[in-house]
């Protein structure tokens, strides 16, 4: 009888309370967990034999896949318009290059057009105003392709943002996290949008309707008849020849649920804010009945298995409604908080229970039964995350499912770690629990129940992200307690198809792989339990592809036992010939006073069924299956030709669609390309001067260079005569006070110059000198390894020049000893600068100047020399120079330094291009090496403004 409750449940501890510390995650392998005895009546005369049976029984029905991979059911219909973002991309934590950094690197050349442009735009405030107005109006900057807007954007950069870039960056960061979490787990798909609704079943065929969403945005609802039959080789085969009936909906379809009541199937469809009902039967085409709009995001829809035309829906605000067609919505319950603890999660679920007026209401913390009879509501806990269910910390309800057809009192509940079967007659204590060990939480589940009760029920769990499919088997729940059968079995995932496909071009391969990796959106099963037993599993991916795999029942009585001899004791007592332990008449020994006859009924039914099976299968057929199974056990197997053909067909259809789309989407890409056309427009060159061929040529070349995104310099733009280095202004030639002051001002030391001039800082200087002496003494007392090391290295090997980090470290150590560094250093140095009088262009004179300085300094203070003196380094000088000028100079110098010095330019050029290398070192070095050294030091200078590399040379020289 259906309503029986197991007479004796398996023993277990009960511990209400919060979940325990997380135990080691070992999965559910190799455990019996609990055991209890049953008496098995062996025959009429023999006495009852005692059999012990474990909660996790070893036996199982073995199901073998017909094909080693899941096969596409239909050719690809859709193509994704945008490349989906991957999880890895969203979790990338490397340094992200900002636009500014890029510019510095790519547009390092002295770009005077920038200046010109700036001047131009700076003048026309009107443009700016219109532009800023327009920016507000336009939603997508890509489509508002005004040239001026782009140019202005380049100019204004940060100032045009509505949101400060920093804030924007944080928001984007946040959004990336949300997107990432959504990729990992998107609760809107809970329940799945794929349903198989059986109509008629025969011994060798079955007809039903597959209901699934289609089109690019998954907003068209398809009803498609499918038929399971036998092909010419008597193997089960699906045919999809019928045309689907389509309905175009307003939003993406997230969930489809159906129930057959009184031979009419009611189909509930949920999208974000709409829920709809369709009705169909075998004869009648589907028709839409009613649609409701929700104010909050709908999270669940379920169709009543009891009363036709009743549904329940739940929404994110926490309300659950009973929806009776033609009568409208009726609130069942509303909870603003979570049920059992404050998890603050908006997801809600509701479903029907064994009683048509009691509803199940669930959130992430647990399940509740809500009784709405006679107005008053009364709630009862059905399941809660906690120690009673042996939950782990952090575990949450993912999908609750009322097992209508299997046992109306049972619920399947999945969490990240486990799957539970809960009986509503014995709430809070799950009657069965598996550790499913899936990578991502199972969000789709189907439970197939054979018509005959003594067969195992099959649970197929599907996950969203990794598209894993897991098969679990269990039985019981009526006379006998629930028992799990065999370890979980993983079915092949969609992606497994890849390894059997012909080799393709890499980019095609990539596109196909990406497509096959897309998230799951639904799972359906077709369990044909008559004749040749098959279990077909359909999978729907988020991009609308349908795949299926078919499993056939392997009869272990034929091949298993004959192989292993009788001499060997078999593992597990339950290896019965037909593999279904429950077909034995089993009853609790304690209950022997009251013999139960229902079991016997079951037995009789089971026998009858088996007989029917045997008679229906021809001997030849049986053999075929067997030979097939033998083949399939000899792994690794390859898919059949038909399956491969299906895969190929799918791929071809997909690639064709993809190609068509790509050519169509070129327009889209054009918008996003930064046009260089406008940078040097013909007009600007024509302006003021007569246009002639030379200008035209220059313009063309320039454009070509720009389009290639190359730096406009000598090598890429040979048409220009190489610009000779402008004559340098030697400040030492200008000895008058004004010139000196100007030089100082140019270096940003105007105030210091005055201080020097007026002698304000004399005391400080003296102090600084004392401090320096003290420091030197200390340094001498200590080790000088850093110094000598830098010395030897600089002499012996030029390449060590780039490695100045060691030096700068030692300098830091040094500076820690003295207290002069903060304010006084500049004074000391500026003292010398009066001697040196270097302007920015004195690079050619440098070595000479240096020597001068050296001598001067040594005259003034001989013992001071070990102190690194950055005065001569250009970088240091740049530091002092006002920003705007520095920038132009840097660009300029960088561009010049871009191309290697040419021998024709003579010594001057070389010495100029090597401002950091002393003459002695230069003699060792070959030009190319020097260039690289130089480049490196420049690079380092751009990286850290503080790192003066010049002193290295000085120190090296000091050794001489």
């Amino acid at each position, binding site marked *: 009888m259906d*309503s029986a*409750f197991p*007479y*004796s*449940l398996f*023993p*277990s501890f*009960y*511990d209400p309370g919060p979940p325990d510390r997380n135990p*080691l*995650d*070992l*999965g559910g*392998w*190799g*455990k*019996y967990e*609990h*055991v*209890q005895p049953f008496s098995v009546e062996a025959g009429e005369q023999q006495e009852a034999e*005692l059999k*012990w049976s*474990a909660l996790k029984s*070893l036996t199982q029905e073995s199901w073998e896949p017909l094909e080693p991979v899941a096969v596409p059911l239909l050719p690809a219909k859709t193509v994704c318009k945008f490349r989906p973002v991957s999880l*890895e991309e969203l*979790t990338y*934590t490397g*340094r*992200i290059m900002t636009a500014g950094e890029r510019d510095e690197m790519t547009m390092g050349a002295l770009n005077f057009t920038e200046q010109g442009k700036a001047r131009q735009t700076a003048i026309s405030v009107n443009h700016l105003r219109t532009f800023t107005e327009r920016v507000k109006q336009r939603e997508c900057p890509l489509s508002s392709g005004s040239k001026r807007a782009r140019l202005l954007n380049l100019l204004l950069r940060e100032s045009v943002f509505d949101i400060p870039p920093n804030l924007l*960056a*944080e928001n984007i*960061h946040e959004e990336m*996290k949300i997107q*990432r*979490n959504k990729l*990992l787990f998107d609760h809107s798909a809970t329940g799945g949008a794929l349903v198989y609704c059986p109509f008629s079943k025969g011994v060798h065929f079955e007809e039903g309707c597959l209901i699934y969403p289609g089109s690019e945005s998954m907003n068209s609802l398809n009803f498609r008849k499918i038929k399971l039959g036998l092909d010419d080789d008597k193997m089960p085969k699906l045919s999809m020849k019928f045309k689907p009936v389509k309905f175009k909906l307003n939003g993406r379809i997230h969930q489809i649920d159906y129930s057959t009541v*009184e031979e009419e199937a009611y189909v509930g469809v949920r999208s974000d804010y709409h829920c709809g009902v369709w009705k169909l039967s075998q004869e009648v085409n589907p028709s839409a009945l009613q649609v409701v709009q929700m104010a909050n995001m709908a999270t669940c829809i379920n169709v009543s298995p009891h*009363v036709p035309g009743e549904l329940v829906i739940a929404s994110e605000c926490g309300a659950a409604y009973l929806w009776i067609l033609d009568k409208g919505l009726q609130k069942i319950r509303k909870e603003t908080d979570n049920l059992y603890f404050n998890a603050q999660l908006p997801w809600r679920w509701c479903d029907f229970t064994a*009683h048509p*007026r009691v509803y199940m209401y669930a959130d992430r913390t647990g399940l509740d039964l809500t009784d709405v009879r006679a107005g008053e509501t009364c709630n009862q806990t059905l399941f809660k995350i906690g120690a009673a269910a042996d939950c782990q910390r*952090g575990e*949450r309800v993912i999908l609750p499912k009322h097992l209508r057809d299997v046992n*109306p*009192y049972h619920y399947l509940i999945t969490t*990240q770690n486990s799957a539970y079967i809960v009986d509503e*007659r*014995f709430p809070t*204590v799950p009657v069965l629990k598996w550790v499913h060990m899936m*990578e991502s*939480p199972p969000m789709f589940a189907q439970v197939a129940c054979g018509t005959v009760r003594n067969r195992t029920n099959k649970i197929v769990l599907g996950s969203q992200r990794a598209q894993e499919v897991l098969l679990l088997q269990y039985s019981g729940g009526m006379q006998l307690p629930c028992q799990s059968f065999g370890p*979980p*079995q*993983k079915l092949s995932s969609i992606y497994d198809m890849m390894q059997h496909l012909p080799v393709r071009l890499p980019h095609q391969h990539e596109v196909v792989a990406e497509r096959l990796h897309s998230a799951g959106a639904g799972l359906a099963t077709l369990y044909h339990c008559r004749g040749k037993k098959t279990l077909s599993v359909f999978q729907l991916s988020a991009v609308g592809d349908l795949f299926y795999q078919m499993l056939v029942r392997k009869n272990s009585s034929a091949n298993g036992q004959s192989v*292993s001899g009788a001499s060997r*004791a078999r*593992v597990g*007592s*339950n290896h019965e010939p037909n593999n279904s332990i429950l077909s034995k008449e089993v009853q609790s*020994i304690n209950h022997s006073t009251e013999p139960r006859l229902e079991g016997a009924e079951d037995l009789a039914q089971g026998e009858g069924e088996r007989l029917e099976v045997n008679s229906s299968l021809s001997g030849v057929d049986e053999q075929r299956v067997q030979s097939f199974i033998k083949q399939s056990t000899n*792994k690794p197997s390859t898919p059949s030709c038909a399956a491969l053909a299906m895969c190929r067909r799918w791929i071809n259809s997909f690639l064709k669609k993809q190609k068509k789309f790509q050519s169509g989407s070129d327009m889209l890409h054009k918008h996003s390309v930064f046009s260089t056309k406008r940078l040097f427009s013909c007009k600007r060159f024509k302006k003021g001067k007569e246009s002639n061929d030379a200008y035209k040529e220059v313009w063309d070349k320039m454009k070509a260079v720009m389009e290639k995104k190359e730096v406009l310099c000598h090598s890429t733009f040979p048409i220009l005569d190489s610009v000779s280095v402008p004559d340098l202004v030697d400040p030492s030639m200008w000895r008058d006070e004004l010139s000196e002051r100007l030089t100082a001002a140019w270096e940003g030391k105007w105030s210091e110059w005055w201080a020097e001039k007026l002698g304000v800082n004399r005391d400080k200087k003296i102090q600084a000198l004392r401090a320096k002496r003290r420091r030197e003494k200390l340094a001498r007392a200590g080790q000088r390894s850093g110094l000598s090391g830098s010395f030897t290295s600089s002499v012996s090997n030029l390449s060590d020049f780039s490695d100045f980090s060691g030096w700068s470290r030692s300098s830091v150590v040094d500076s820690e000893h003295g207290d002069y560094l903060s304010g006084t250093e500049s004074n000391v140095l500026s003292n010398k600068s009066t001697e040196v009088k270097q302007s920015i262009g004195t690079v050619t004179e440098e070595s000479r100047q240096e020597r001068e300085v050296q001598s001067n300094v040594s005259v003034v203070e001989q013992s001071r020399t070990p102190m690194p003196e950055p005065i001569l380094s250009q970088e240091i000088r740049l530091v002092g120079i006002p920003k705007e000028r520095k920038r132009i100079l840097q660009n300029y110098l960088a561009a010049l330094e871009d191309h290697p010095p040419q021998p024709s330019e003579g010594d001057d050029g070389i010495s100029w291009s090597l401002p950091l290398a002393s003459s002695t070192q230069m003699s060792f070095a070959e030009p190319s090496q020097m260039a690289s050294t130089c480049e490196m030091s420049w690079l380092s200078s751009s990286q850290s403004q503080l790192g003066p590399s010049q002193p290295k040379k000085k120190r090296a020289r000091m050794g001489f």
Partner: protein
Amino acid sequence: MVSNGLKNHLYHLVHLLPGLHKLTSKKGIPSLLEDKLSWFHINGELKMDDEVAELIEERDHSTDEERAWTSSSHSEIRLHLPTSVLQFQNVKDGKQTGFRRTAQTCLNRIHKAVFHHQWHTAAELMPNYFQILEDNTTRKQRSAGQVIWRMGTAILQHHPNSCIEDINSFAGKMKSIGVKHYLKVCLEYAIHLLCNGKMDEAYRELSLAETWRYGEQSASQQKVLKLIQGYRALIDYYTWVKKNSGVQERVGDDAVDSGTAQEMHNYFRQASIGLHDAVQNPGVWDPFILSYVNLLDFYDGFEEALKVLNNYAYDSRFPPNPNAHVYLYEFLKKHGTSPKKLMKVLRVLYQLVPSHELMLEFNSLLLESKKKKHHKEALGVLFCLLDFPTWKENYSTWKCLTKQMKHAIAEGHSDWIKEQWELRQDWWPAFHFSEYRAHKNFEENESYACRKAMIAGILMGKGCKYFIIVYRLGRKVQKAKLKKMRQYVKDHSLLQLSEC
């Protein structure tokens, strides 16, 4: 059939444990993830994606598998971040040595094979995983021991060529993987023996485990110990049952000698002490309770047994187990307790599980009573039963309902029916009395359909669809009966009542 190679692997699996052989050295395998951490530069401060940071941290601290979770700050639930995420990061990960990665890869492959039920492949891979026992952290070693125990057991249980001796020796080895797991291993092994019909060996195993002592016991160990005790006592009980039935048979021939009686009493004592202890803790102890009560009952411990059952049913520390009430009811019924007490027990069960099979007995008990209150309650119990889909097409229940409704009407208590009907009038018509169901019921069983039609008529008047259809269909077959029924409905329907 059995290849030598495979035998070797199985041999490895069973005999070369734990960690007796030195395998590859763990040094010299370069760590690929030595690069510096990369940072996310936002708003002037250095900030790494905290989730990834957590991922790394979790991975460093994880005991067994390299897994991390998304933090609860934004994600709905704690989830595993796939480790592929880390491949794209320049993450410093000192602990993640090549040695461990090798072991983890091996374990993953074992998992994969086991998931696909490729026991041969799994058995071949398993000996390679043993090298994890050489890991330099004790924590890892300890967890590895458990992994080997569980995976090894699973493989041996399902491998087509494994035999019971393999499992025995493997379980023996596994007992030494750690003090903490000794009891668990023993219990699982004992259950294995029990399932294979080796009750005596299982008994020995359980007794040994029960007397095992080692230092302080953790809470989980206590629990396992209690289970061991319970199962051991259960075996004692079944031995007692077997012996007892033998003794009972012989009772006819001659008197029981004192030796046998003493032996029986020993079994009884052992079993009852063990069972008594086992059922003290809150939990589901159906088999233990049944055995314990049977034992007590046999030795005339009625009071004691009643106490145990009452405790099991009414102690609030225990979960609301319907069976507890069922056992109590059956025990009381067996001892001929007064119907009043029986009703009391069943009333509690009625509150818990209104769809329980015993509700039919409850109904008849209530009817036997003289009180009108009970008759009214009986009607309610029947209505409640019919609310459930599993009772929906239960002929006898409908038959009872017809009888009792007629009785109630005859007694002048149509209001009882009305009271029940008011709770159900919005959904019973669609649930029980639809057109489809009328046709179907009539096809399947005419008299049943007629009975149901009469109830429908009484509840909803003769105008209701179900009644009309059945009447129309049935008129052709048994005209007189239907006419009579129609008249009855006309006179006694609730509509009639409300009109009056």
